[in-house]
């Protein structure tokens, strides 16, 4: 599903990822830990095919990156720091727009709005919603096209416990999807991880080692 071997990614002279190797099987959850600037978001963007790895071997969903990154289009659901939603549209209009891009049928929009508990506010403009509500719509957008892989950058940030519980079957481990989750919550992250990766200054320093993750980031 995901196989990274000695992946490196640079921004000019700065190395954002170096020598990162990790393997994730179908249905597993990889949880990525690390301080700010460690390269977590860069890793997600490489996995999404949005950034090219500069060296190493990266295979995601049978697509060899960067050569076959186009094969990932439509197969990845991405919850980023930003909601990737248009502020001047309503949740329903945003989802309808993405549904057209992904050729998803209209009834699916109502289904995902219901799943994230946003049916009642689906026709309010995004600017009228709280941060937690916007995050729920972002989760709905990410799963609208039923992606094979979910890339989640601190997906629970800004959500209250009830919303987290509501989103668990949508983007949580109960979704059954292969997931890569970036989080600062060590205890919460370890509880849902099948595979762990700790990053520091772009380097994978604690691959699959929960004890090391707890020592480094706990």
């Amino acid at each position: 599903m995901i196989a990274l071997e000695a992946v490196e990614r640079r921004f000019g002279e700065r190395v954002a990822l170096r020598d990162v190797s990790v393997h994730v099987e179908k249905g597993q959850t990889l949880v990525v830990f690390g301080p700010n600037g460690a390269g977590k978001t860069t890793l997600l963007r490489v996995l999404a095919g949005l950034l090219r790895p500069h060296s190493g071997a990266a295979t995601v969903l049978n697509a060899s990156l960067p050569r076959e990154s186009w094969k990932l289009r439509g197969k990845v659901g991405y919850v980023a720091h930003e909601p990737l939603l248009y502020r001047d549209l309503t949740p329903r209009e945003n989802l309808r727009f993405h549904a057209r891009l992904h050729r998803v049928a209209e009834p699916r929009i109502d289904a995902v709005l219901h799943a994230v508990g946003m049916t009642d506010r689906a026709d309010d403009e995004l600017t009228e919603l709280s941060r937690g509500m916007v995050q729920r719509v972002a989760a709905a957008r990410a799963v609208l096209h039923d992606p094979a892989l979910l890339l989640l950058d601190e997906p629970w940030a800004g959500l209250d416990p009830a919303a987290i519980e509501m989103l668990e079957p949508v983007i949580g481990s109960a979704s059954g999807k292969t997931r890569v989750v970036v989080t600062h919550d060590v205890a919460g992250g370890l509880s849902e991880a099948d595979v762990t990766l700790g990053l520091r200054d772009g380097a994978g320093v604690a691959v699959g080692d929960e004890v090391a993750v707890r020592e480094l980031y706990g």
Partner: protein
Amino acid sequence: MIATARAILRKDLTIEVRRRESVPAMVLFTVTVFVLFHFGLDRDTVEGDIATGVIWVTLLLAALLGINRLYVAERDQGGFVGMRLAPIDLTALWLAKAVALFVYLVALEIVALPAFDLLLLGPGLDGALPELLPILLLANLGVAAVGALVAALAIETRARELIVALLLLPLLVPVILAAAQATEPLLTGGQSPDDLAQWLGFLALYDVVFVLVSVAVFDFLLDE
């Protein structure tokens, strides 16, 4: 690709109708410039080459306002990322933006031409309209095609407005030249230009070339 472009265009026009950020700014700018020319030239009316220069340069500078905003929502609100994750031909994005800009220019001209007629133009536009319309439409098409391409090139740069102006204005010199040559006799007492067909052909050729260039390169532009 057409269905995707239609979806992006519908989204853009919905946001423009709701927020009114581009077209009103373009219209306000244009009318203000006409008023400034009215007083700056210290004459009640203009015609011929001066009228042609005033109208085309003003429309071009007004177009820059819309061009600079074309991709702002895509950059600031994650539209680029969302589209690069979707199974679409990204050329649809250029097509949608070019059509949106074309619509903005037509909306601008619906207000700007009567305002120009009222504030500055000596001979009047009524007799010239049938011949002016194809000139405007072909010039709009060229500005829209090149504008949507250049705006995408510049959107991730810090000096976006400057880059757009520096790249776009030289590229649009042939459009302005042809449009002005075709328009000038029309604004000189309603004379019909002898070589109108030649200039319209030039504008059409320019449009075809830049539509083809945009279709060929746009997907690569949005690649990292």
